[in-house]
């Protein structure tokens, strides 16, 4: 599943007591061992404890739990009722080929389904596909589709639809993250239920890419008939279909009674119990949370400051997910101030991640991140943590001394008459400003004077290719380790490689990672790649955000995917 790239994270709040946290995990594992918990309850609680999907999956695997759980409270699950969720922006369009908007993703993932889905143990299972075969050379992938799947308009989801979808994606989908992949791909219809994908090169990230809404399958006739207006008349195969859309205000979906392709982690393998699902556009977080309190919406993401109020309120259930996202401090090596490895290492030592997490995320809505791939992204390896420079101001000072930067009269270091005053660029989001403020204060203790510049996102993205920034404070969201290619490869120097990092050895590993189909071997490649990064330090990893979604108690049985995404097929309304 591709997680939509978020540029500004929210501000959050919760105090997790580290001691009890450890204890809770121990308790959780013990409960699981003694089968006091079913798989779903376990996943839910693991999520609540902030465990990554990977960790959760590993624990489940270790415990040998694989069977689906028994229904929790079957009695009350009657179809009917409506729920409303708050979103930050208007979805703009519900044509997944034409947008990269975050709210659009939230909405269209409930409308479309793709060939495969990612299960909670992070493996891929068939959704619209029944089974598949991969050729010896990894260049051909043949899917057999499920029989009897229909689109919202009644047409049949067949091999032609799959071919049509990927050809349309390659033609018009420039805004869709799978655009490039679709262009390097040929799709052949073998028979109505068999479709073959032919690749130019092996693509290890393929399943991850096509799972989720961005890889949703389109109904050819309905799409062609709607023409330019398709974004307003989406037709998919998933549990909800579009009913009404008040531009900029409210998108209303209704349940699709003929839903047949349902992810295996749901109890309910048919149409959802909830009859109407609305997304209400509320840009200001304060107003979102206020709407939750007045009952105008049933679900909203919490900010850190609100957490205590909601967690102690039995009117709400808090669903926790760990986003496949990393906040980082980029160091632009091509800049004179940042070219010295000792300076970069000193900066990494001067960063106090615990203070960042406890201050800006109030200890609840982020975890410290020490590695270029955080624990929520495959490729994370715990052994890397100790290679990452730890918080140690004295070590930072010593490294700077060694590099020839000596303390001046005002405590700021100087060398040959030049002050150690790097410029830091970030977005105008509130959280970015707060992070910048705290990092400025932390680096000040090592004798570095950071000059903060906030630019609105469009201007910032246009500015970074010029390479005039010493430091960059940004975050990315992506659930495949190939993200390193996107942001740090020499190929992307002109665009998304915003820290102007280039290392041929690293580049070679990235290509290897893209083409290694064996997952274990692939992760070993990314382990090596990350070792290089922790040595070169183009990024100082800072934090991994956690999302806490508060759901009013009238909505029962809602869950979130461990890396984010509200799961509603088992949910029902209890008024």
């Amino acid at each position, binding site marked *: 599943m591709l997680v939509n790239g978020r540029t500004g994270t929210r501000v959050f709040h919760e105090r997790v007591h580290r001691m009890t946290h450890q204890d809770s995990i121990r308790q959780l594992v013990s409960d699981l061992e003694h089968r006091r918990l079913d798989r779903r309850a376990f996943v839910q609680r693991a999520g609540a404890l902030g465990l990554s999907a990977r960790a959760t999956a590993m624990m489940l695997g270790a415990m040998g739990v694989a069977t689906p759980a028994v229904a929790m409270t079957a009695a009350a699950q009657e179809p009917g009722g409506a729920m409303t969720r708050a979103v930050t922006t208007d979805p703009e369009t519900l044509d997944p080929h034409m947008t990269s908007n975050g709210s659009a993703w939230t909405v269209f993932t409930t409308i479309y389904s793709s060939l495969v889905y990612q299960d909670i143990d992070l493996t891929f299972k068939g959704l619209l596909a029944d089974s598949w075969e991969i050729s010896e050379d990894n260049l051909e992938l043949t899917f057999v589709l499920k029989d009897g799947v229909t689109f919202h308009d009644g047409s049949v989801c067949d091999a032609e639809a799959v071919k049509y979808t990927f050809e349309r994606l390659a033609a018009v989908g420039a805004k869709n993250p799978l*655009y490039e992949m679709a262009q390097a791909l040929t799709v052949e219809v073998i028979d109505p239920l068999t479709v073959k994908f032919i690749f130019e090169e092996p693509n290890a990230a393929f399943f991850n890419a096509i799972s989720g809404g961005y890889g949703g399958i389109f109904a050819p006739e309905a799409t062609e008939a709607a023409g330019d207006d398709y974004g307003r008349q989406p037709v998919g195969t998933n549990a909800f279909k579009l009913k009404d859309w008040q531009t900029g205000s*409210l998108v209303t979906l209704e349940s699709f009674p003929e839903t047949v392709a349902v992810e295996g982690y749901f109890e309910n393998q048919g149409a959802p119990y909830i009859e109407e699902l609305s997304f209400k556009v509320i*840009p*200001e977080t*304060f107003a979102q949370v*206020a709407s939750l309190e007045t009952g105008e919406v049933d679900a909203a993401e919490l900010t850190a400051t609100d957490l205590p109020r909601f967690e102690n309120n039995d009117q709400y259930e808090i669903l926790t997910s760990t986003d496949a996202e990393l906040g980082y401090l980029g160091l632009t090596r091509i800049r004179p101030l940042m070219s010295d490895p000792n300076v970069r290492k000193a900066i990494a030592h001067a960063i106090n991640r615990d203070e960042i997490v406890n201050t800006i995320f109030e200890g609840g809505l982020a975890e410290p991140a020490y590695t270029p791939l955080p624990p929520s992204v495959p490729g994370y390896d715990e052994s890397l943590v100790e290679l990452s420079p730890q918080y140690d101001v004295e070590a930072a000072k010593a490294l700077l001394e060694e590099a020839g930067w000596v303390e001046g009269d005002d405590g700021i270091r100087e060398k040959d008459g030049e002050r150690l005053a790097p410029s830091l660029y970030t977005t105008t989001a509130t959280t970015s400003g707060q992070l910048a403020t705290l990092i400025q204060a932390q680096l000040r203790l090592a004798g570095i004077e950071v000059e903060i510049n906030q630019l609105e996102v469009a*201007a910032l993205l246009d500015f970074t290719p010029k390479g005039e920034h010493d430091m960059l404070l940004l975050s990315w969201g*992506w659930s495949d380790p190939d993200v390193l290619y996107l942001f740090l490869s020499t190929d992307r120097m002109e665009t998304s490689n915003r820290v102007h990092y280039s290392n041929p050895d690293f580049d070679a590993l990235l290509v290897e990672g893209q083409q290694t189909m064996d997952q274990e071997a692939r992760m070993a490649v990314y382990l090596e790649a990350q070792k290089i990064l922790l040595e070169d330090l183009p990024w100082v990893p800072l934090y991994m955000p956690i999302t806490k979604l508060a759901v009013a108690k009238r909505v029962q049985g809602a869950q979130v995917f461990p890396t984010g995404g509200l799961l509603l097929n088992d949910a029902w309304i209890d008024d």
Partner: protein
Amino acid sequence: MARYIINRLFQAVIVLIGVSIAVAAMTEFVPGDPALAILGENASPDAIAALREEMGFDDPFWVQYGRFIERLLTEGSLGTSLRTNREVLVEIGDRLPYTLMLTFGAVGLSTVLGITSGILAAVRRGKPTDMAVLVGTTAGLSVPSFWVALLMIWFFSIRLGWLPVAGAGTWQHLVLPTLTLALPSIATKSRLTRSAMLEALGQDYIRTGRAKGLRERRVILVHALRNALLPVMTIVGLQFGALLGGAFITEVIFGWPGVGQLAVNSILQRDFPVVQGTVLLVTVGFVLTNLIVDILYAWADPRIHYA
């Protein structure tokens, strides 16, 4: 009069062309590649290049402007939004009713409150009431509107539970955003009414009226107020024109789907066709309301005549 109006409309067209050229030229200076802004962080260089090519972003702004004018004249279209692929006119049309609701609400409320409090202040000139009106209305002009909006949500929606926080659809949804927008403009109207009333009350015909034994209420409401309305009308016109462009902060806080959010989000995401469309809307609004006010002026005050 007809000639005057035609002349004014002709000049309005010139202003519209000027504004649209200025906006088009600005796209050249404002950093931020629309293709990049739309595709976002994860976009590949190829995808960006493809979109730039498709949209013609690489052409100089006058070439792009030429295409814009050509499309406008031949198809009557302002182009399509880069974010939603819908017609700019449709995008604006979806939001205009909400902006009009809010505009009429805010202008109406502030005008009623402004004139009433202004009359009160004039009649009680120098008394505590006068001072209270002044401080009260000026206070509304002195606080940052987003602060007032947040405090009102906290008080009216959360504490009292009287009004919804965000959204649109019922009259209840309209109340808080209307109040937020009306508050700052009450003071101006109140002060204008007060001084115009004071001036009018000193005029000979008012004294005559009083001497003739007309009831005080009639003197104030009919004779004095009529004079006071002219300057207030000017303000109403300008405020109306300005609010047609939307009230971004108020709309954001109350989740109100108006033109303001559309305009600012389009600027931030470099959706230039929509920016162009919303700016033209504001300009048309300004020009028309100014014209209407001027005509009303001529109609209400025969001393003014136009060459």
